[in-house]
């Protein structure tokens, strides 16, 4: 691996950048690996990286139907945060934020985690009471949180509508100062490059067509590049988790929906933080390039079509104009959609699939990007040890039988 640094960049600049090596190889699949991970998105690549780094399991293949990082990792709105209510969620997502904070230097790849804070606004007295409940919960969970009044919100996000005819007047909000955004592609590329350097084979354009099941155990995958046997198989395929589970004739508590995102033309800086206004169902941040990155709620129709639908576009964007009317004339450059895997409690599923040898990392719904380091870290632990990590245990599939759902939306009204 060519190490990246300012010095190296300086030197390469002087010799036409001829010395940079491949960020990752394009290997042919071997017939067998100790572990095969389906899906070279953020979670799959991070899993491979931590398997190699934390557990010394380097004989690993990550198989990917398309190009690495091409699913939701490369389609999201790049928000990273851990403003959760339940201790179980806080432990999971704050592990992720803490790993993200060190990730650029750990991977030697600048993922541009920019901790400029995230505000969730509150628009009535009852919402302020819920916000207080949320801030208290976060602090008790050991996560940074500040309770903002109207003036403090205004100071941080002056673009918001503070006019008298604002449909949902802003009373205040919850700030997580350590939240922010990262460069989504860089997360995938950084993990890919680091995993590759540790010996992991990342095999792109390799679609899993079926599972190899022998004596009731999953021992590998049939792929478009041939059969690959594996000591253990982990699936991290987000919106397509049901498709993989279907190969094992199992129904998961997952419904796939399109989630849309939007980016505007680049503007000089106008917005420093991430802002989410729940009653409008819209959130926004400004990327380092200057584009406003806009997101909202799920489409209303279960879908595997990676494109958005007009009614939701209108809801999200109209909501944006209501919350920040000065953006009405800003032009939209592009919108797109990813397929997200939504569970009944909007919390992820980590752990055994029910088929011996096959493990799941899925159900992240609309919030998988922020969880990539933790998802990979914990999934690697599960694959390497066959056991849950304390942080992943509550997210086992078994919770749907015991009733121990972790439903953040129901607890706090905070959207995922």
């Amino acid at each position, binding site marked *: 691996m060519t190490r*990246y*640094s*300012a010095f*190296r*960049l300086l030197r390469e600049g*002087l010799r036409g*950048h001829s010395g*940079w090596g*491949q*960020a990752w190889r394009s290997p042919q699949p071997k017939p067998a690996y100790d572990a095969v991970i389906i899906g070279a998105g953020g979670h799959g690549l991070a899993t491979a990286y931590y398997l190699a780094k934390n557990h010394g399991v380097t004989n690993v293949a990550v198989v990917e139907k*398309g190009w690495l*990082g*091409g699913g939701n990792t*490369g389609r999201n709105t790049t928000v990273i945060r851990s403003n959760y209510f339940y*201790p179980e969620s806080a432990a999971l997502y704050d592990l992720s934020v803490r790993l993200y904070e060190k990730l*650029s*230097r750990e991977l*030697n790849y*600048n993922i*541009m985690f*920019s*901790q400029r804070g995230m505000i969730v606004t509150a628009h009535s007295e009852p919402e302020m*009471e*819920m916000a*207080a409940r*949320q801030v*208290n*919960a976060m*602090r*008790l969970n050991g996560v940074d949180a500040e*309770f903002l009044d109207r003036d403090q919100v205004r100071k941080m996000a002056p673009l918001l509508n503070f006019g008298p*005819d604002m449909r949902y007047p802003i009373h205040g909000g919850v700030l997580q100062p350590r939240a922010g955004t990262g460069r989504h*592609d*860089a997360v995938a*590329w950084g993990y890919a490059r680091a995993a590759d350097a540790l010996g992991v084979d990342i095999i792109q354009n390799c679609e899993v067509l079926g599972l190899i099941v022998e004596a009731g155990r999953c021992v590998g995958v049939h792929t478009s590049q041939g059969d690959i046997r594996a000591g253990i198989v982990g699936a991290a395929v987000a919106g397509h988790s049901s498709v993989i589970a279907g190969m094992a004739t199992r129904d998961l508590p997952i419904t796939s929906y399109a989630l849309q995102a939007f980016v505007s*033309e*680049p503007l000089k800086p106008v917005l420093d933080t991430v802002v989410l206004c729940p*009653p409008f169902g819209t959130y926004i941040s*400004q990327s380092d*390039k*200057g584009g406003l990155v806009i997101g909202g709620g799920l489409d209303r129709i279960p879908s595997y*079509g990676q494109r958005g639908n*007009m009614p939701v576009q209108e809801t999200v*964007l109209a909501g944006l*104009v*209501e919350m920040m009317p*000065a953006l*009405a*004339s*800003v*032009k*939209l*450059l*592009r*919108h*797109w959609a990813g397929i997200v895997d939504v569970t009944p409690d909007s919390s992820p599923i980590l752990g055994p699939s029910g088929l011996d040898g096959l493990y799941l990392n899925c159900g992240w719904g609309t919030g998988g990007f922020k969880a990539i380091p933790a998802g990979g870290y914990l999934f690697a632990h599960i694959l390497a040890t066959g056991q849950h990590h304390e942080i992943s245990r509550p997210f086992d599939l078994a919770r749907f039988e*015991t*009733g121990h*759902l972790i439903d953040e939306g129901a*607890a706090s009204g905070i959207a995922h």
Partner: protein
Amino acid sequence: MTSHRTTRAALIDLGKPLRFTFDGTAYQGFEGDTLASALLANGVRVMGRSFKYHRPRGPLGAWVDDPNAIMGVTLNGRSLPNCPATTTPLEDGMQARAVNAWPSARFDIKGGLDLFHRWLGAGFYYKTFMWPDWHLFEPMIRKMAGLGDISRNVLEDYCADQVHDHCETLVIGGGAAGLAAARAAAEGGQNVVLVDDKPVLGGGVHQLAGVEDFAPRDWVASEAHAIEAAGGRILTATTAFGIFDHRMVGLVQNGPFGTAPRLHRMRAARIILATGALDRPVTFASNDLPGVMTIDAACEYLARYAVLVGKRIGVLSNNSLADDKLAMLAEAGAEVVRLNPADGAICALGRKQVRCVAQGRNSHKVDTLLVSGGMTPLVHLWRHAGGKLDWCTERQAFLPGAAPEGMVAIGAAGGTFDLDAALAEARAAGSGVPADAIPSRYKLTPLWPEPGSKGRQWIDFQHDVTLKDVELAARENYVSVEHLKRYTTLGMASDQGKTSNMAGLAAMAAVQGRPLPEVGTTTFRPPFVPVPIELYHGHHEKQLWHPLKRLALEQEHREIGAALGEYGGWLRPGWYGTGDAKAHIRQEILTARNAAGLFDASPLGKIEVIGPDAEAFVDFIYYNTISTLKPGHIRYGFMLTEGGIVMDDGVIARLDRNRFVISCSSSHVGSVRTHLEAWRQDGNDPDRIFVHDLTDHWATLTVAGPKAREVLTDLALDMDLSPTAFPHMTMRETRFAHSPLRVARVSFTGDLSYEMSIRRSKAAELWQALVAAGERIGAAPIGVEALSILRAEKGYIMIGKDTDGETMPHDLGFGVPRQKKKVAFIGDRSLHSVKANGARRKMLVGLTVSVGDKALPTGAHLVEGTPLQSVGYVTSSYDSPTLGHPIALALVENGTERLGESISVWHMGETRMATISAPCAFDPEGARLNA
């Protein structure tokens, strides 16, 4: 002055001169100009600076394809950022400024950045800025990035009109093919709409010497008239920006500068795509110099705006379409120097504009260099709709392949570049009568980027992506087309790669030695051109955004000084009176406790369940057993989700054997109605159960307080009000003002209370009677805020406030049906899950504080252990005027087993103590309730 206005007849109105400025300098143009054409007419070449290196740039294209000339424009006090000069119609008084340049595009102080370009290549930022920390570098980078600046002021009346429309045949593109197709379709009797994104129809037709023996303008006019005469409609200045599911086409219709465009949601049974093709730029050293332009753009400037882009023009073309066009330029007075691509790579020379073009050892002094690398059909919309693309080797382009249902591509959009063939194809598509295809005369020699060649060869002009960047991406194995795009940012600029994507693909193909089609294309995403966010917003604003429901008595409440607010989707009186709200609320509570409060409870649900199976149905719907309820009686109960969570609470009354009325919470009426309808039809006999939501028919007025009976007595209703004849939890039907009146003895305050429902149109009469009767005994209207405290004193819950998404009925002290109810009901099995039976359930309790302590903050957590762990939270907390001390409700783990225990209350880092108590703090024996 190299570029200049000629005397050629064009589409501008020389009788209407327009004044404008660019970067502070005054110029003149004409009606019909774009900002770009008017500037070119004035000899201005440098119209912008590139995103990264701040390189001087002039227009490369003449319409939506141009990546370079981006301006902030102000007119009549309205400023819009990032306006493409090539598509912004000129208006009198416009002040334009190049974005990303200061003080001007011509002299930009950041121009020096270009000197450092060798360190700022593709993805350089991924390799550095990691030590000590990204946050150190980011602010500077953010400031450097971005294009235009927005005014933070809100534009008044900037509101998009939004319409729905439909047609049988939608023709997108008003060039030769589009016009001919629309005419044929309209004359064939179809309902046709033709849209064209330019203000003037005709597409590239105006460049031609003639069309079918007509002068171009006459031909365009006659086609347009024929379309309209046959009943077709034509929308100009209207761009189809996206095709969505089920052939819904988004059209943006632009008006004058500064006004919001109109959105047409056009549903088309059939779509004819006649969007034309773009002339591709050619990749060579310094191909970004102002003065380098596509041939097609130069001809458009001449044909539409009478602007000749240069005097001595070098031309490099690899295809047969260039010849006719060159004649037009020569005719207008340009000296044309042709360069043959076969003679080797060319190189443009100059500083802020092209001065010379070199090819091998030859060099030619030119002031303009026109290039054409072949035509790229505009297939964006085809791909939005799910159409496939096929690579055409002859044309060296991706052409529409397998068609989406109901869609066809014609003319240049379909790869048919010859006029006669395009017209024949268009008429066949429009009329549905097939025609023989005319063989293509279009010839070209592939001319793609050559890896390893010298100089800085620009591929994405706005984003400053060069051939070397593509080579670097390949070297580092970012070879997938999406990786290439994302790593180099190629195609991600505000033009979305209209000119750069093909060059980028070709470059990657060449670097890797792969056939171009194997590299693939990136996804074409809407919108085809940038559209203002307002387009999606329209009139759905302010009061019309989730509009509140209005009470029948709103006017009456206003007249007596109600402070109205939003409560559960309704606009309701929060309290009455101006000034100190808290004092008013306190007084209202005391009135309700000492005399009676008059409360407008109209938003309470009134959903009737009617039919022979109604009894069994409500038993299934409710947690509680309802079937044992006698007519005229009322029961409090819960509806659960199948997950066993409390979804709504409220009372249900039995009107007769086959008829119940459900009084659900105000904000849950819609969801309860849907819930009932779904279960009625799924698993029950829908012919024997009917659900009538009559919430809006009935207004509901409540009299609550110890003197409530006196108020009702005053109304002289035909009924016995004595507690024995009309006890708590019963309902009577009578008449008031000749209308049916339902009186229910239910209470949400803990005092004697009558809830009266009357048809909406009679509500005012009843209200006035109540107010008059109330005045005599000291009763007065009370608002929602007072009621919230009154009910909390009694320990009555509000779903969603005092419960959360985990609360089950046994957490609220209602455990019996869970153990005893024999028939199936929604959520029953979930009430016995491991978690439902678990030891640490959060249960509803009250909290009391020491004498003299302030009320607990709502939202505070109850904590235990080290480190502190949350075991619950305060859900409602008030100073109780009735009791003279604070009260609170809370959800606490195992709460009901811990009555009397002391517990820590934690809020924003501070801890207080409270004692766990029963939720009901007022009249726990219920003497006042049953009075």
